[in-house]
């Protein structure tokens, strides 16, 4: 491999739909939170909360990750897609299955949830057929490839557990307890989404921030620590352990992301450009959310409810800060770099040097993009505060703000892709030193 291979990327029409459709999941999650009932603080597995969580995780975050894998794999990690048509079919199946699953979960139609789960299993299987060769699974090389390879293994594990849950609901195979639920959630969130976010940040942040620190100090250590903590932690959580064991698991699970966060701060500290632009700002905000989620995660592990009779309030706040805060803000920060970049590669790379071409900043409507991030951060904070305060009204308001953030995200990304005439504001470089 002689360098990056933007010309090896799949066509824009294959990858772009993943990024554009992803915020529809955030819109769905916001809508579900707006309609959550007063049982939301009693248990985190109520219909609307399960629907909101899966809309955000399987819809918004997972579609973004799939887009990143399909794009980064061939263009940066030297892999290839087995079939572009397969990726397109998988996209349609995934969007349909998530939509049906979320709507069925909201009304707790277990049989329909089961049917949608089959669709999801097929979608993820098709995704893996392309994803393994795309990232050149476990072939050594960049740190991002190692993180993504392990994350795909956790995706398989999470899917297996998730399907067994649907079977348990339908056929009573085993009781679904707080412990089994926590094991499943941490396999999926930290194992799949978390490692994907960590791995892609190791690739995307130095790339777009032009950082001088390209050999992360803790990255090679944080991965095995996180892998071990999630594997042992999830299995142990499924046995419904006591608070002492849960706290140990929580601390072990926090260690890897903590080390990764130290690397990320170092990467941003050594960036070549003095201005601290959008992706860097979003990343720092997401690290703040990671810190808050870690604190609440430990408190949830201790298991002392913030209010008697409402044991789910702490867990709900913890989940929102991790999913919407840490992962979600990172995804927003990266998508406003990745989407303009793939549009630029598809439309302007060929023309560069022969005629004036816009730069990434000119492809993006910056006020719109900034409003998206602001709305999202406010929405996450309102929902987390609502959970901690036990206010259903505030929960509905937070859901509405997240819905607005999703709409803003969706339309801003769609604008980048659909806009054909982009004015070039940048002067063509004239006189150089001779």
């Amino acid at each position, binding site marked *: 491999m002689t360098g990056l291979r933007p010309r090896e990327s799949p066509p824009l029409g294959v990858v772009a739909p993943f990024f554009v459709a992803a915020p529809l999941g955030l819109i769905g999650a916001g809508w579900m939170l707006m309609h959550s009932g007063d049982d939301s603080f009693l248990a985190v597995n109520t219909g609307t909360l399960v629907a909101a969580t899966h809309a955000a995780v399987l819809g918004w975050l997972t579609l973004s990750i799939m887009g990143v894998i399909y794009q980064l794999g061939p263009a940066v990690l030297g892999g290839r897609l087995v079939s572009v048509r397969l990726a397109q079919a998988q996209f349609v199946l995934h969007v349909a299955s998530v939509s049906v699953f979320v709507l069925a979960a909201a009304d707790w139609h277990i049989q329909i949830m089961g049917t949608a789960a089959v669709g999801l299993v097929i979608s993820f299987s098709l995704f893996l057929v392309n994803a393994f060769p795309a990232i050149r699974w476990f072939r050594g090389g960049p740190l991002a490839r190692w993180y993504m390879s392990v994350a795909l293994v956790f995706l398989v594990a999470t899917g297996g557990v998730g399907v067994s849950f649907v079977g348990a609901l339908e056929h009573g195979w085993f009781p679904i307890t707080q412990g089994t639920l926590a094991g499943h959630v941490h396999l999926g969130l930290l194992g799949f989404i978390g490692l994907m976010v960590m791995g892609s940040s190791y690739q995307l942040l130095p790339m777009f*921030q032009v950082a001088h620190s390209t050999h992360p100090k803790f990255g090679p250590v944080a991965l095995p620590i996180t892998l071990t903590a999630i594997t042992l932690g999830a299995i142990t959580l499924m046995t419904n352990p006591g608070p002492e064991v849960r706290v140990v698991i929580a601390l072990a699970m926090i260690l890897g992301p903590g080390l990764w966060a130290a690397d990320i701060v170092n990467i941003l500290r050594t960036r070549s450009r003095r201005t601290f632009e959008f992706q860097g700002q979003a990343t720092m905000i997401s690290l703040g959310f990671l810190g808050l989620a870690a604190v609440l995660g430990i408190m949830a592990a201790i298991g002392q409810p913030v209010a008697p009779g409402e044991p789910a309030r702490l867990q709900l706040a913890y989940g929102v800060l991790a999913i919407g805060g840490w992962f979600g803000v990172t995804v927003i920060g990266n998508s406003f770099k990745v989407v303009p970049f793939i549009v630029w590669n598809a439309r302007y790379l060929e023309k*560069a040097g022969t005629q004036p071409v816009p730069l990434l900043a000119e492809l993006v409507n910056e006020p719109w993009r900034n409003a998206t991030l602001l709305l999202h951060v406010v929405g996450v904070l309102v929902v987390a505060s609502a959970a901690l305060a036990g206010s259903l009204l505030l929960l509905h308001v937070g859901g509405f703000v997240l819905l607005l953030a999703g709409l803003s995200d969706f339309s801003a990304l769609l604008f980048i892709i659909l806009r054909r005439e982009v004015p070039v504001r940048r002067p063509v470089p004239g006189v150089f030193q001779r």
Partner: protein
Amino acid sequence: MVSTTIDNRGLHPPEPMVRILEALGTLPPGDELRALMDREPMMLYRELERRAWQWRFGEEDGIFVLTISRAPK
């Protein structure tokens, strides 16, 4: 041979690549272009190869320098 230098340090991608390709478009025959860089421009190499330019990348006084000239036919 005249050497023209552009300073691409502190610029976000793809601006360094765009500036280099634009500068190459106005480079007189026989001249070479020197670009001061923050890092090795991996994405540019394919484009240079495709457009029949040759290059060398190295470090001079702690600064990364990419030197580009027309590839011999």
